[in-house]
């Protein structure tokens, strides 16, 4: 009898019945939802009861001292690291903890690494081509042909990231800043719902930084963007909502002004800087 009740529960959908490829459900607001997440590596608590919500279309900056768990958090969202406990939801329909990295990527979470990684042997155009949101299974990829609309889409992104003149050059010859933009361009080709950007302006010149800020703010609204960054000036120039991480959990959340006046934050983070 209890088994029957188990099966007949009305408020639950069997996992095998829930369509995996269904669109992301953001009717309730948040696109990303982390609750009570814990991760430890050999006893060291990298993430400690982390709770974080990101709304659809939001541009969120995450700051925190080294070792605060920023990169680990990104690893959890993209499926690279599995948390010990807690839950991570994308929209209100997709449990990211049950999905593999490629599944999460094709669901619409794009990630930019700290160190720019582009395919250096391929041209700028080909880099964007591979990133395009298409059928990524073996045989469709093998027989894929370059359609005019794909070409237009790639040219559109090339325009946005200002690499049009370098279209047919191997990505290996690009400067550091250009590689960062190419990587952001690759993320855009995937038409992601959520962009995770890890230290986008590390090693950039002042001008490149401005250009990147412009690019990221232009994306917000259409996509949700989560930026992890050390450079406070840069964060101040783009941020609306800032989350401060410390020792694997959220220390403060709010606008840049609120956060930078928070005494706790000043003590652990800004205090060190000043």
């Amino acid at each position, binding site marked *: 009898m209890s088994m029957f009740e188990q099966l007949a529960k009305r408020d639950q959908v069997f996992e095998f019945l829930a369509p995996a490829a269904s669109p992301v459900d953001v009717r309730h607001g948040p696109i990303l939802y982390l609750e009570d997440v814990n991760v430890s590596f050999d006893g060291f608590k990298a993430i400690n009861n982390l709770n974080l919500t990101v709304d659809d279309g939001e541009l969120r900056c995450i700051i925190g001292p080294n070792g605060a768990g920023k990169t680990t958090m990104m690893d959890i969202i993209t499926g690279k690291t599995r948390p010990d406990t807690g839950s991570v939801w994308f929209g209100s329909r997709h449990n990211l903890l049950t999905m593999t*990295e490629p599944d999460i990527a094709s669901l619409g979470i794009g990630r930019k690494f700290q160190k720019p990684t582009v395919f250096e042997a*391929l041209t700028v155009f080909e880099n964007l*081509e*591979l990133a395009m949101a298409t059928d990524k299974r073996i045989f469709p990829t093998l027989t*894929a*042909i370059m359609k005019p609309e794909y070409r237009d889409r790639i040219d559109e992104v090339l325009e946005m990231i200002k690499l049009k003149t370098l279209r047919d050059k191997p990505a290996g010859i690009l400067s550091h800043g250009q590689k960062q933009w190419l990587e952001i361009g690759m993320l855009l080709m995937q038409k992601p719902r959520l962009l995770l950007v890890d230290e986008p302006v590390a090693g950039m010149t002042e001008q490149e930084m401005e250009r990147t800020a412009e690019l990221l703010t232009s994306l917000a609204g259409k996509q949700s963007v989560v930026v992890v960054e050390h450079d406070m000036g840069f964060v101040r120039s783009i941020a609306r909502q800032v989350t401060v991480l410390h020792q694997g959990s959220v220390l403060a959340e709010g606008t840049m002004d609120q956060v930078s006046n928070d005494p706790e934050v000043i003590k652990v983070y800004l205090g060190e800087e000043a």
Partner: protein
Amino acid sequence: MASSQTWLLRPLQERSTQIFLGVLISALIVVTFLHLFMPQDSALHVSAYTVTLLGKYLCYALLAVAVDLVWGYLGILSLGHGAFFALGGYAMGMYLMRQIGDRGTYGDPVLPDFMVFLNWDTLPWYWQGFDMAWFAFIMVLLAPGLLALVFGFLAFRSRVTGVYLSIITQALTFALMLAFFRNEMGFGGNNGLTDFRDILGFNLRTDATRLGLFIATGIALAIGYIICRAIVTSKLGRVSVACRDAEARTRFLGYRVERVQLFVFVVSAMLAGVAGALYVPQVGIINPSEFSPLFSIEIVVWVALGGRATLYGAVIGAILVNYAKTVLTGVMPDAWLFALGALFVLVTVFLPKGIAGLLQKRKKAQHDDDPATAQEATA
């Protein structure tokens, strides 16, 4: 359907493939002509021995192309491709053994000589069906393909890459060598399979059959080259290069890296199997020494010499090194391994991109301002 045809035939529109096929086909025609129409005593006459020798080189060339496909474009340094070559060879050898029929030393109509010698009274189950050519030829593809599928599935799923994968492939071929040395395996132990008579009803000891096998090998090389070229010029080829250079990045783009690796690895193993199958009737024997790790390493040396990630470089490397081997082992048998080692060191130091790199450099110097060729050279 239209698109699937286009991707396979696309390489035929490429200049490099046209040149490669042109040279290969001309070579086949010239050799055939010199063999058939030049008088025996002419200096230009190509003897049946030489035709078979050239056929052997072409088998090695196909094998090298298979290795270049996984090493050059996918970044998987396989030190065990000899295993796939040998499995294809054994499948062919089993067919040829069954064709001997009652003409063997012991005159048993079904059992090969070595089984009679071992006092076996029935044919093992895995020898069934090899009397039929079609079955044997399917097994030539299937045996190496299945091994690559199972091995690759386990290795790539566990994300074994780099030097660890190389070591495992080496262990794979070594394990198979030890297994095939055992008489109980039923593959003729250390003597292997030999004393072949007919293939598809043609006597293997006639010059005409030898010439036919040489031409068949040339055609197999051409088709294998086109298949590899079709893969590397497709989007999947670019994904392979992406897996080679930044595996994690490719995974985050949504590609299943392990499946790309598995697909290319299996295709490569099948090509190696075909090379082995064509090799066996030409040299007349297959034994476990083809599984030896040393042979697999030698294949890698051919590819390195010819130039990685070019395919035609692999062909040049395989033919040149094996020609040098034939000449040198004839003149000074002891010097060969030293020469091979020296060659490898010299090429690694002075020609990191191999002979193909040298060709590309010259071509680039000639039309440096032509963006299309400059792009091709760097790709």
